[in-house]
């Protein structure tokens, strides 16, 4: 039973990781690609970790749930990474793709960079 549940979670996780990476390859501009790692890290890795927890729940004596810790770290850091990346992108003037809504905000955001 554990195995089946774990397998399902693993498959889901794998799927989302792949989708994240597909998005990274496919999306047209930097700001859109920025969404990819958060995708991969949140649901993809989360599902795989849950699968792992489920699997080991019955296997090893005592519950080792370091997976939760990994998730915690990722949840804490992934947004900051994304934030830093976008900050840097603004700083280095990577333009958003054509047709981006509110493209005028780009210059507004860059205000603190030009000081």
């Amino acid at each position, binding site marked *: 039973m554990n195995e089946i549940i774990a397998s399902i979670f693993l498959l889901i996780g794998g799927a989302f990781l792949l989708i994240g990476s597909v998005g990274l390859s496919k999306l047209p501009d930097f700001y859109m690609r920025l969404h990819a790692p958060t995708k991969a890290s949140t649901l993809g890795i989360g599902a795989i970790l849950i699968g792992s927890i489920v699997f080991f729940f019955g296997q090893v004596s005592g519950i080792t749930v370091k997976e939760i810790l990994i998730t915690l*770290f990722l949840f*804490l*850091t992934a947004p*900051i990474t994304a*934030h830093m990346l976008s*900050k840097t992108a603004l700083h*280095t*003037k990577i333009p958003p793709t054509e047709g981006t809504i509110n493209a005028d905000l780009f210059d507004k955001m860059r205000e603190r*960079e030009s000081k």
Partner: protein
Amino acid sequence: MLNLYWIPLLTFIGSLAPLVTQKFGRNACASATSFFPLIAIAIVISNIGTVFSGETLRFSAQWVPALGLDLAFRLDGLAMLFALLILGIGLLVILYARYYLSDKDNMGQFYAYLLLFMTAMLGIVLSNNLLQLWFFWELTSISSFLLIGYWHHKSEARKGARMALAVTGAGGLALLGGVILIGQTVGSFSLDAVLASGDLLRNSDHYMVMLVLVLLGAFTKSAQFPFHFWLPHAMSAPTPVSAYLHSATMVKAGIFLLARLYPVLSGTEAWFLIVTLTGLMTLLVGAYVALFKHDLKGLLAYSTVSHLGLITLLLGLGSELAAIAAVFHIINHAIFKASLFMAAGIIDHETGTRDMRILSGLWRYMPHTATLAMVASASMAGVPLLNGFLSKEMFFAETIHQTTIGSLSWMIPVFSTIGAALAVAYSLRFIHDVFFGDDIKDIANVPHEPPRYMRVPVEVLVVLCLIVGIFPDFFIGGILKAASSAVLGGAYPADFHVSLWHGFNLPLLMSAIAMVGGLALYMNRERLFSFQSRFPERNASEVFDAGVKQLRDYFRIFINWFENGSLQRGLFFILLVALAMTIVPLTSLTTTAGLRPHLPMNTVMVSGAILLCVSAVATVAWHHIRLLALLLLSVVGLIVSVTFALYSAPDLALTQLSVEVVTIVLLLLALHFLPQVIMNYSSPSRIVRDLSLSVLIGGVVGTVNYALMTRSTETISWFFTENAKTGGGGTNIVNVILVDFRGFDTLGEITVLGIAALGIYKLIAGMRIAMPAASADGIPWSSDKNPLMFSVISQALLPLAIMVSLYIFLRGHNLPGGGFIAGLITAIAIIQQYIAHGTQWMHDRIKINYLTFISSGLLIALTTGLGPILLGKTYLTSWHDYVAFPLIGKVELASAMLFDLGVYLTVIGAVMLILANLGGLTTSNRIREEGES
């Protein structure tokens, strides 16, 4: 009776006397100096009876048995003759120099060198061990270098000294080779053994080699053609030195060597040819050039060359009588030439010049000296009733009775006669040009006779010329017999006597021809001189010096080309050698794959491999895009870490990951200080060359790697697996190896880390460096120093990271982890704070002396190992036990944990010292780079 070794020892000790006594005045200095040779000569003389009776005195003591070098002296006839010359003439020179040296000259130093030289000469002639002989041989080169260069403010003196050193030194090295070859052939360096092995040596395969090497030594020392050129330039030495070294002693060392080894090396075709022809050539060249020298000492120097050639020629002829004649002429030449040099010195001393074109009519001013000089010159010219005549007659006689060069042997007497005629001519010139003719002009003071005692040495020598010339057998017979027997190996002709008159014979005729011819030559000197003046004058020392300089320049060109200061060249060589050293053995490895079963492939691993290889190649392709290269390195590092994890090395994976991060931070810091634009320094051909080499090396390394992986070897690792828990008290075998089985490695490793931090600290101290004010794309830096959200999360992560590091530390002995990884994690957590908040913010909150971390960490690790020594165990012996604590239960305590704590602290300290310092540099030392803003 004092032992033999006292003879050189006395003069050696005596070399200190002038240094000590010179402050008591010149007389005291000279007397003290002569005291030691006097005793030495007394010792020699006291042995005359024994030696004349054919006995050889010996002394021997072990010195370096491994080398066959003994301290061994012998006193036979030959040695005695030379010892008497060296000491006797030496004493006269000491007396002479007392008056010759001026107040400005450092007399103590001069005498000290002179006695050192005397010691060396005595050492040569008294040696009973060939290596020891060589020892003293080289000492004469050194001491003569000092004596020739005595007036070192003169360029000519410096050059002359250097040239003499180089030429005689080179000969000395050749001699060393010859001596060793002889020693190896005979099986001993003892002269007794060598002298008894004549046939063995002459029949040896190496005979020619040793002969040539020995002759090179002898010929350079005795200024034989074509090595004669150094001797005239040694004339820049003070005249007493010339009188001593360049007539009586040092140049005779070569002759002595020929005589010494005569019994074992002569008697072969090669000896005859080489020695005779060299001697003849030298005889002629020396005599010819002497005639044209305007410098008194130059004339005498070339005359010496010529006479040395004569002696050599005699030794080459190979007959008993020739050898005796050689010995005889050694004595005669020493006597008349020393006196002539001294006379020349007096003239120089009194008139201030030695140029025969200036000197003239001195008879009027110094008749006494003139008389002495004339007698000595006459001896040099071979005038009857003087000693020079006797040996020259013998020489002529021997040149007639030889067949050295077959049907051309007649040339030897003919050329000898020509040489003799030249000798007569230059002797005439010496006398006539200097003492006769018009009154001397163009000199400052009116010349007069030298001080009384300055003349004494000359007088003694001239008297010797006369009495040896008139009563040869009575006066010189004994020593001549003793010395010649030594040269001939005991085969002294029983009925031989030196006598003044042999009747009218061919030699007498030759003498007469020489006399007449010499006179004729001198009469026609004007034409000869004008003929000679058409040749360009070449100064041998200039030529030699220029030659050495030229050689040096060629060498410089070579070195600058070969060691051109290019690291790339050096590394290329290293890599090339590496390639050669691996390729050569691999060519004999027939099958690369071993028998060990291979692991199956799978998609994940292949993807990893693709990632790795693509990234590595991309790193090369984009290495000039620095940040990109760095990111690619991260990819490689990540894959390598995952590979470690995959192949059962969790510890390695963790270590690699954490080291990776620190490295990236470090490289990022570095990037900031390195030029933003990387030049492409390589030409296309170099790129192709380097690519080929690197592909080959990669191929070889990969092949070896594959061959190793696919072969099983019985290793020692079972021991670690078996003893990790029981002996080391841990289940993480790798960690137990690190902190226990091979704790010594780890001790070294953390020391390396600590030292690296110290070194980097040194590097950073005082570094001044320009930093760019904008990125490479020209975008000025962001004004947001510490992005808010980044700081907040970094802060939040700190306790977490520290907790993780403690966990990793504590479990390391049993599960993947340990002090090193934990230390890195802690350090990274702190670095993260530095990145997020900046150095100043950190300094306000935390004041850690990272140096203390390093030193206490290292001290803990070092002293943990010391404990067991007190318990009688070896260093680093570990201890572990299970201790029951109330509430907590049984806890394992291990000394290895303490050791690991040392590792932990050192790592934190080292990493932080490096990074925090480098970070600090940027704030304290901001110089904006020009042109990049």
